[in-house]
């Protein structure tokens, strides 16, 4: 994206920037700067990522042997419940939008901040209050319903702090809604002069689609969890058949949000990949409009496929068929994106820097995750693999292989902008490789386990499944190491890293046209946009 403002030369020591403009705890906790709020989120979600990871590690250690010998079954059930709750609601959903989206959307559209800076800060506080409720539940004995809170287990049978956990998620939902609202208004009203919709970076398009889901879907989960809480306390008979309720109704309501929520997690990562692939191929994206509209198509179709979680819940055969058909349709926009990213690389100038390594990993793993999703959309096969390790493997390929790979790729890509420092390239490439190997070793054997029939959420399992479980646990330890290394060198680089130039990747993105780290107002002179995004070749070489 060509902009009028291009700094002439790098100052050796950056002047005032958003990091050094003010110091002290108050300057952070009361900030209205979207960049500082992004860092507040970064610190919080990093904590939850490692907490959720710790639960995962304990789960994998338990599954090292067939007998339930490390922890008791009650504890095991709490571990996988808290792993799911923490990773989904307190890490994955806020991860890319609240950190990278918050930091970058105003910069990518040439704005000083989001449309509602105070609301943005409020979102973070709401998130923290919600997290506090859920953490209270964890500390006071946990909850053992599974992150899915299926009724009547959650309303009538489960032990533990179901209500506190649900209240935490309910509250955190408002943080999501407000963030989505803020993004939508910002993207509509605060674009720089000349920045038309089809000149927007694809990162912005994917966050726009994500925001739509956040605003439209989150209220449904909020109401659903409220119903669970109310039923548990007052025995209203909404879901419990003993009181005249319908237990399957809960599943409809829950998945009406929670399936689109999968797209809240993956769409922003797709946005990151579009930015990384173009920058490190020095090419404009292949099929810009197809990639942009694919995001919107995913957001819209994503609301129509919830019934594919219920193929064996006794719903009508014909309802199953409709949901199966719609689920295949939602796969197509994802396939379009993968093909376009691959085509973008054709005859590019491809750099093997760390963000691009994560993009390679993302494309491969997301492809496997997406294709195995087709197995689950296929009715006759889903009956067998439903609720087995096959589905555990599938969604971890999307959530970990896709969303977290995208998040890490994005963190490396924008780290120079965020911190003003370069991360150590050698270590970063090494960690990316470790993550890729560890990930596949952890989750690939689970596809095999699932088709063999090992059900998910099993504390103990028949001995013939042990070898594959040992492989998975070994992989999880490697993956854990792969996640710790970047935390160390990111922290190290804050103090010892080389100063980052404004645009170390020679990207055309507007966020790279200001200093690293940027000043509080982002651009000393408001930029004017005069062309499409991702124009690397000279004008004469680009057609269309």
């Amino acid at each position, binding site marked *: 994206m060509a902009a009028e403002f291009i700094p002439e030369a790098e100052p050796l020591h950056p002047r005032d920037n958003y990091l050094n403009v003010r110091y002290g705890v108050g300057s952070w906790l009361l900030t209205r700067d979207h960049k500082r709020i992004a860092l507040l989120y970064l610190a919080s979600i990093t904590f939850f990522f490692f907490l959720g990871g710790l639960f995962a590690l304990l789960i994998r250690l338990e599954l090292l042997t067939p007998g339930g010998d490390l922890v008791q*079954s009650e504890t095991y*059930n709490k571990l996988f419940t808290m792993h799911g709750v923490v990773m989904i609601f307190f890490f994955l959903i806020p991860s890319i939008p609240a950190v990278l989206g918050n930091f970058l959307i105003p910069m990518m559209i040439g704005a000083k901040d989001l449309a509602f800076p105070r609301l943005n800060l409020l979102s973070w506080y709401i998130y923290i209050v919600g997290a506090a409720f859920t953490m209270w539940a964890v500390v006071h004995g946990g909850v*053992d319903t599974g992150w*899915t809170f*299926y009724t*009547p*287990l959650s309303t*009538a*049978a*489960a032990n533990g702090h179901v209500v506190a956990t649900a209240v935490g998620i309910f509250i955190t939902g408002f943080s999501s809604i407000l963030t989505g609202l803020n993004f939508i208004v910002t993207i509509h009203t605060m674009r720089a002069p000349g920045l038309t919709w089809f000149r927007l970076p694809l990162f912005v398009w994917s966050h726009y689609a994500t925001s739509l889901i956040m605003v439209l879907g989150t209220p449904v989960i909020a109401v659903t969890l409220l119903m669970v809480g109310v039923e548990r306390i007052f025995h209203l008979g909404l879901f419990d*058949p*003993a009181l005249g309720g319908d*237990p399957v109704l809960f599943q409809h309501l829950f998945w009406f949000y929670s399936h689109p929520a999968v797209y809240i997690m993956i769409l922003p990562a797709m946005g990151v990949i579009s930015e990384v692939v173009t920058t490190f191929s020095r090419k404009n*994206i*292949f*099929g810009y409009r*197809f990639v942009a509209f694919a995001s919107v198509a995913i957001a819209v179709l994503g609301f129509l496929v919830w019934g594919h979680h219920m193929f064996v819940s*006794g719903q009508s055969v014909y309802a199953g*068929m409709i949901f*199966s058909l719609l689920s*295949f*349709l939602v796969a*197509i926009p994802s*396939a*379009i994106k993968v*093909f376009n990213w691959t*085509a*973008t*690389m*054709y005859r*590019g*100038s*491809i750099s*093997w820097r760390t963000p691009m390594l994560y993009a390679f990993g993302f*494309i491969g793993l997301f*492809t*496997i995750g997406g294709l195995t999703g087709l*197995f689950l*959309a296929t*009715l*006759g*096969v889903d*009956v*067998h693999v*439903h609720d087995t390790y096959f589905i555990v493997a599938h969604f971890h390929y999307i959530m970990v292989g896709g969303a977290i790979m995208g998040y890490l790729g994005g963190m490396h890509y924008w780290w120079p902008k965020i911190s003003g420092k370069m991360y150590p390239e050698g270590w970063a490439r090494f960690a990316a490789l470790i993550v890729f190997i560890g990930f596949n070793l952890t989750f690939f054997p689970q596809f*095999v386990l699932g*088709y*063999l*029939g090992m059900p998910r*959420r*099993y504390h*103990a399992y028949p*001995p*013939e499944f042990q070898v594959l479980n040992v492989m998975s646990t070994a992989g999880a330890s490697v993956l854990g190491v792969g996640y710790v290394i970047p935390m160390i060198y990111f922290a190290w680089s804050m103090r010892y890293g080389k100063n980052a130039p404004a645009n170390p990747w020679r990207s055309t993105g507007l966020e790279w046209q200001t200093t690293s780290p940027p000043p509080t107002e982002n651009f000393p002179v408001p930029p004017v946009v005069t062309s499409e995004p991702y124009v*690397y*070749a000279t004008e004469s*070489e*680009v*057609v*269309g």
Partner: protein
Amino acid sequence: MRPDLPLFPSQASAMAPHVDALYFYLLAVSAFFSLLIAILVIFFAIKFRRRSEDEVPVGNEGSLKLELAWTVIPLLITMTFFVWGAKLYFRMNRPPNDATQIFIVGKQWMWKLQHQDGQREINELHVPVGTPVRLTMTSEDVIHSFFIPAFRMKMDVIPGRYTQQWFRATTPGDFHIFCSQYCGTKHSAMIGTVHVMEPTAFQAWLSGGSGSESLASAGSKLFQQHACNTCHRNDSQARGPNLEGLFGKPVQLQNGQTVTADEQYIRESILMPSAKMVAGYQPIMPTFQGLISEEGILQLVAYIRSLSPSPGSAAAPSPGGMAPPVKNSSPEREAPK
């Protein structure tokens, strides 16, 4: 000891090879596209690697033809998955009429199973090779799911309603039964074994039972015990609908709708009699919610079913006495495609 490393589940039902064939088709298509993308990414990454810091490649022009190709081709391929998968699903959900009935009640954390002739089992299921078996299932507490991997068969077991699934075992042997819907503390202990037996061995097992009475006969006793027969009778004194010949027939309701008198309807009519009032009758029947266990209701359903000598409902009416043992004499069903 050499570690045991199975990579593929045993195929022990008529459905299993069909599910596996579709699975291998999906696997082949997925492997093709995964490899295609992986090879292209790696090839481009090497072939077009950056050779100098200053190089700038020519821009992409896009291609409508390519975009259409990689939209339409995947769409067509996924439609083949859809059609094939839907066909199998349809067959899985349509039990043959001559299937033997087995009733299952799930509870935290065990499976209680009962054969038509009355044999009860807990966490074990004996079935003969070659006979279609239809499972009618419900739960006493939370949602469970009855899963036999070797049969590629699974269905949720839901409190407050009946769900159904069927299979035809093809290979003698012992196979896992798992509960696959998370159901609380001892979820992973809610497991069992299905013993698939040769028909003769199965007969021997059946007759070796402890002389338990058939479901329908037990239901008949309950019917008297709860005095159902004072209203549901076959004469002018009847204050409730006559139940003889009712099962499987359409019922005209007061609100003008018509429902089929199936297991689900009978269960509901016992527990919530006024939910679907039959045309021409007063809502005078009391609810039996909490008075009859899920197993008792299943026995009543079996009894009412036995009052209708329809093809396939194996037990003929045998008032007061033991129903004859149900043997499947009909020819084996065609294997589903």
